[in-house]
């Protein structure tokens, strides 16, 4: 079906040349956008225009453009990944916007994610949390046949629900405390539901938790905002499981 055309919209976007530069909002006019375009295609079109005008295009993270790599990370009109639900920024389409609207685009605002340029942030902190314990310590080779480790379908499904996390950071960006609990919980909960994860459960929960604190993410006050912002709808029930895992590990100390 034919998509409608937005004759004119206004994009108010955060511009910051480098991590230490002072940033500011700039507003640009974008014309003649099909509602069938994705949000990032609209930014592409705007950038093309900026380049032709001799201006610096907006730097933003994106890659797969199908909602799975977790690279895109825009805060749009006060929502992580914009006004649609269960989508990443790259899956957001212009049909969610209307004629003449001003669209405000900001980077993830999390202390642990410093701005690199414009709306591109540094999420190395997430890497460090994963490196602290987001794995099962098995080397390549010498593992048993896959079917010698049965997993009930329910557990496998629940583990998969958690494992669906794409590490985009929308949870932390949405949280008023800038907490990374949902991100952390997704990994810990995945392993907690699987026999393979049991061996190192205590060490994992403690190490990842400690790393998250060390990196300056805030604590969780159970507002549930993260679950709503999560493009993969990861449930805060996983945070409850993380807390149980953590408590079990601490009690054992």
């Amino acid at each position, binding site marked *: 079906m034919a998509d409608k055309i937005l004759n004119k919209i206004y994009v108010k976007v955060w511009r910051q040349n480098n991590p230490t530069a002072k940033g500011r909002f700039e507003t640009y006019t974008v014309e003649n956008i099909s509602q069938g375009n994705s949000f990032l295609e609209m930014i592409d079109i705007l950038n093309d225009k900026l380049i*032709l005008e001799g201006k610096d*295009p907006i730097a933003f993270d994106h890659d*797969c453009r199908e909602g799975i790599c977790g690279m895109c990370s825009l805060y749009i009109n006060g929502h992580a990944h914009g006004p649609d639900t269960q989508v990443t920024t790259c899956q957001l389409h212009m049909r969610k916007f209307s004629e003449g609207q001003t669209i405000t685009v900001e980077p993830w605002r999390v202390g642990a994610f410093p701005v690199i340029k414009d709306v591109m942030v540094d999420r190395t902190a*997430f890497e460090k949390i994963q*490196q602290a314990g987001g794995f099962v310590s098995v080397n390549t080779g010498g593992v048993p046949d896959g079917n010698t480790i049965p997993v009930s379908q329910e557990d496998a499904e629940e583990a998969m629900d958690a494992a669906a996390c794409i*590490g985009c950071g929308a949870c932390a960006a949405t949280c008023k405390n800038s907490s990374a609990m949902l991100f952390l919980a997704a990994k810990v909960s995945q392993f907690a539901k699987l026999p393979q994860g049991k061996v190192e459960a205590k060490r994992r929960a403690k190490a990842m938790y400690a790393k998250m604190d060390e990196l300056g993410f805030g604590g969780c006050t159970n507002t549930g905002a993260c679950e709503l912002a999560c493009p993969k709808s990861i449930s805060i029930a996983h945070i409850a499981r993380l807390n149980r895992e953590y408590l079990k590990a601490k009690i054992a100390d």
Partner: protein
Amino acid sequence: MSILNSRIPEGSISDKWSNHKANIKVVSPANKRKLEVIVVGTGLAGASAAASLSELGYNVKAFCYQDSPRRAHSIAAQGGINAAKNYQNDNDSVYRLFYDTIKGGDYRSREANVHRLAEVSPNIIDQCVAQGVPFAREYGGLLSNRSFGGVLVSRTFYARGQTGQQLLLGAYSALNRQIAEGGVKMYTRHEMIDLVTIDGKARGIIARDMVTGEIKRFGAHAVVIASGGYGNVFFLSTNAMGCNASASWVCYKKGAFFANPCYVQIHPTCIPVHGSQQSKLTLMSESLRNDGRVWTPKKLEDAEKLRKGLIGPNDIADEDRDFYLERRYPSYGNLVPRDVASRAAKERCDAGYGVNSEGKAVYLDFKYAIQRLGKGTIEKRYGNLFQMYEKITDTDPYKEPMQIYPAIHYAMGGTWVDYNLMTTIPGLYAIGEANFSDHGANRLGASALMQGLADGYFVLPYTIGDYLAGEIMVPKIDTNHPEFAEAEKDVTARLNNLFTIKGKTPVDHFHKKLGQIMWDNVGMARNAEGLTKAIKEIQELRVEFYKDLLVPGELNNVNPELEKAGRVADFIELGELLARDALNRNESCGGHFREESSTEEGEAKRDDENFAYVAAWEFKGVDVEPVLHKEDLVFETIHLTQRSYK
């Protein structure tokens, strides 16, 4: 006698890998600690290789252009991973997987490599399970399988429609463990822009820090390219926006032969193109063809009404629907291999039966599966794909069939490697999609993940030792060596050149033009006239590019336009080689369809007498014709026949 030595081991097909492992050299643990390996790319192949090499004791430096190794485009693979486990008791075996892969590749791959791939495939599943990859399970707790195109057994393991994601996160977790332990030094947001060779051996790379713009030197005793395929040469593809061929291309220009570039897979089930401003195409997993039925209207007038939006697909009665895959290929039906399904879709649309406003779409219908299995089952199997489809197209595939059309998806061609996965440059390896080795002229579904992980977990960690055993006396590579200085000077000049053209045209415009030339002349159907025209147009585009390119921003800052300019410069050269290779191969095989070589029924016609070889191209200069080297394909085990899925 070809100068290419594929180093295929002696012995019967099932003994070759064992014989080879028994004969190749092994490096002692004490010496591994002294050796360094660079791995470029952190998808399934790169991440699994980097982690496994570090576990063995090598010092690894890994590079990716994304902000995290977890974001490599393997993450987007949906349907599954093949393995010859025979868990379903349906008479699967290593031999059958080997045979299916050779046949699926239209007899254009190396028997020995493919057999090895089939042999190690069961180990991959075991490895991933041990890492905690949440594969789909049966009620009894054992692993579940589904079917994929081009085969008659159920051997595909999966994690919903996110198998690539889960396998990559498994490899990423192994990589993270090695990063934490210090065995892998990870460089994110770094792009390899040159290879450094010293006395003919790969000794390091030059990379650009994509945050600061700094040009950096990295030395190692061996370099592994795991940077994926070149599908983005077509601009619109299912690849990620950043996927590029530059790492492979600089290796080609330094002497690594490039093999079979014309073998590009066009995936039959992608969301059709809309308008002219689209940035990429989205794949709908092949697994959907397990339960979806592909059709177009039988009557031209119905197709016309659909295109004008006067009627919808549900207005067309069953008897007026042409399930053309089931009609033409009764034994495989909707599960024919990708190349066959893609051409069949094109044939219907070219004949006027296309169903969207552009006439370039067919239906993939789940009505029948929902009637048979219930909506709940379909939702469980494909829920995330249906959701993705709805978000993009604003139509509900539970109620209305999906519209699909073929799109560029995967590169079977790539850097030429021998049985050890080493390129024609000693000490330089290529693994995963970046090499050419295992899929011949067409890759079967769920085999890319298998190959990437086979190379990274179970092949390279063995074969690289054979080379590195000879390097144990070589001290840490000194990046002050004149070759490093020379390479750094070259890349700095190259980037400066792109930056200072200051023409009028942003890089995307060139990329789109290139893509259009490629899709129109080097796409699903190719002929000598079109290919010759394409080569000329690409050469003209290259001249225009260096005259009129406009790169904004700064050299020493985040600059995506500069990154793209470098990649597109390489794509333009690669596109020309792709067209040349397609012109040279005057036969139809797998994804490569030459109109001059087809049967009366319009099926592809192979020419084994003249083309049963790997075409490996040697770079001789940008304006000089490359030299073709042929590696003859010898089939000792499988008898060559014309492929049939009827």
